[in-house]
């Protein structure tokens, strides 16, 4: 009997303590904010996202000062292997079993579109940095997803427009055959046509292709002035490298890398990559804050400097935690609404905002890859040629067809 009483008292004390803890931390489910970094840990997008994204999320938690504010935040990570089914299964398991509150990063648009739907179903939050498809804030938008760093429309509008305007008016597309490639090709084609150019041909290659020579030969035969690379990561570096070998540029055609990351430039080497025009929303050597971030980041990431995807993960997690602090809840739908209602401000992207359709708004930069002679230090690769102001960098909300906007 005594034992039972004791047990009851202990239980009571424990539950009181639990209630106390809950009220102190408001509506935080099971007292922990759990951030799941769902990314490519083993394949062609690993260096531009991968471990670096996990690191960026952890840095954001640290810089937010979660521990000092009495918030318990945990960061976990997993590999989606670039397979939408693996990705959505992981997301389900995370949400249902592991009590994850928010999924971040997720390069590969195919996986991101799948996870976005799972997130909506479960009423959680999804902060996309790595994936590109503008459909995430277009016809596939949800009240639970925020698309942070960049998208296909922005890339098309930045790189595509700059090239058409300087005379590159006939295009041949080399497109990665999945959601991302299709979206990038579609958005770039629209920009080309709108600016009076034409598309003379396209070819779709499987994701993670080693040899592009056959496709490059077709591009060469098309006589298009511009060979547009609607692919990413290893696919882009392989196509650029092999295009040089087949004398595409020497033959008078030009390459347009529609999505080229800092890590891709590093992999190509400046000798091959020099002169490439690309669009990005973050460059590590832009100002003292970004440089300080890059220094810390590279020291913990085998010297790899942050790509815009890494920066986006950092910025998104930081804003997410601020929104929880302000709204006192980690309920996915509510936090996302809170995030949209607050202006964003962080050392990497500066001041910005999040639109109703889930699109994060900030400026974009048109950059050119430096010549080997211009580069003063390792990772000193880009020079900024133009800044596209925030209000012009992304697709106007009215054109996206997001059902939330109506």
């Amino acid at each position, binding site marked *: 009997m005594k034992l039972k009483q004791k047990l009851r008292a202990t239980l009571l004390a424990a539950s009181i303590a639990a209630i106390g803890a809950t009220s102190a931390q408001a509506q935080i489910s099971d007292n922990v904010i759990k951030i799941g970094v769902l990314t490519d840990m*083993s*394949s*062609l*997008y*690993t*260096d*531009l996202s*991968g471990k670096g994204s996990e690191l960026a999320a952890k840095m954001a938690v640290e810089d937010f000062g979660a521990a000092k504010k009495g918030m318990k935040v945990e960061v976990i990570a997993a590999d989606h292997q670039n397979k939408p089914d693996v990705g959505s299964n992981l997301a389900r398991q995370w949400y249902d079993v592991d009590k994850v509150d928010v999924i971040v990063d997720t390069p590969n648009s195919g996986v991101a579109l799948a996870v976005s739907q799972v997130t909506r179903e479960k009423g959680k939050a999804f902060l996309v940095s790595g994936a590109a498809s503008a459909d995430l804030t277009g016809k596939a938008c949800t009240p639970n997803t925020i698309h942070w760093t960049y998208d296909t429309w922005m890339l098309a509008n930045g790189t595509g427009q700059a090239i058409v305007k300087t005379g590159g008016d006939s295009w041949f597309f080399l497109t990665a*055959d999945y959601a991302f490639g299709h979206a990038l090709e579609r958005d770039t084609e629209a920009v080309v046509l709108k600016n009076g150019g034409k598309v003379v041909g396209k*070819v*779709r*290659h*499987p994701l*993670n*292709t*080693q*040899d592009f*020579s*056959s*496709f490059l*030969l*077709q591009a*060469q*035969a098309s006589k298009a002035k511009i060979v547009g690379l609607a692919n990413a*990561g*290893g696919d882009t*570096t*392989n196509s650029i*490298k*092999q295009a040089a*070998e*087949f*004398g595409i540029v020497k*033959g008078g055609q030009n390459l347009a890398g529609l999505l080229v990351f800092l*890590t*891709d430039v*590093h*992999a*190509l*080497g400046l*000798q*091959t990559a020099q002169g490439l025009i690309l669009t990005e929303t973050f460059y590590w050597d832009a100002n003292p804050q970004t440089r300080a971030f890059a220094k810390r980041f590279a020291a913990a990431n*085998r010297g*790899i400097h942050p790509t815009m995807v890494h920066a986006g993960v950092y910025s998104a997690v930081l804003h997410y935690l601020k929104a929880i602090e302000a709204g006192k809840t980690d309920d996915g739908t509510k936090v996302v609404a809170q995030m949209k209602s607050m202006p964003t401000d962080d050392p990497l992207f500066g001041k910005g905002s999040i639109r109703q359709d889930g699109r994060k708004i900030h400026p974009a930069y048109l950059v050119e890859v430096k010549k080997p002679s211009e580069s003063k230090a390792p990772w000193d690769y880009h020079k900024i040629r133009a800044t596209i102001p925030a209000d012009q960098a992304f697709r106007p909300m009215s054109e996206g067809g997001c059902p939330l906007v109506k």
Partner: protein
Amino acid sequence: MEIFGIPSQALFGQLLIGLINGSFYALLSLGLAVIFGLLNIINFTHGAQYMLGAFCAYLFLDKLGVGYWWSLLIAPVVVGVTGVIIERTMLSKLYKLDHLYGLLLTFGLALIIQGLFRNEFGSSGLPYRIPQELQGSQNLGFMFLPNYRAWVIVVSLVVCLATWYVIERTKLGAYLRAATENPQLVQAFGINVPRMITLTYGFGVALAAFAGVMAAPIYQVNPLMGADLIIVVFAVVVIGGMGSIMGAIVTGFGLGIIEGLTKVFYPEASNTVIFIIMAIVLMFKPAGLFGTQK
């Protein structure tokens, strides 16, 4: 002139490209066939060893300033020696067991090696330039043929045929083949069979590394470069007939060409066509095109 709606000039170009890719398939499947034919080991580490070859070339250049030509010689030797060590310390314990054990061991090794390299070097690849002497390209009228690619075709043809010749037409090859049929008897003639088998494995591995060095300037030097390729190469070996040297060479080149043509007519299927062919061949000739039913 047009063939199936494709200008014949473009078609010639694609055939040539197919032949170049086929060169890599042939070089790699040759190594696999030699190892399987003489050791009865299904060497799943082959892709990783191909990658090691490319990394050797990269590291030699980056750390020691040793260029492409020396790498072409040294890298296969270095990687071959690691192969010899693997054979002596691990594989040699498995010869009496089922094939499956060798397969599991080599598959596990491949995962470990690739994982270690990915951890160290990341996944986006490292730059490696085409050697000065082989830069530039020839205008063949129907296409620009980069000099380096022409070199790839020539070298792999020479290496493949030389290997075939040594194994099928020389006394050394005869010993090797005899040793796989009846090791005791060959040993009784005073030939050191275990050493011969070790060296054969080393040679097969060196061939993979050689292909890796050849590939370094045109593909990215990437920890996973062999992981995707090895599956295709296995399909090539299965189609050609496990253990058949000539089969591996001919199917390697042949499938390269078929894959090249698929890239023109229906590019989306270019990474599956080889497996479709494999399925069809296995249905009608389970031992492969050049294999003999044992």
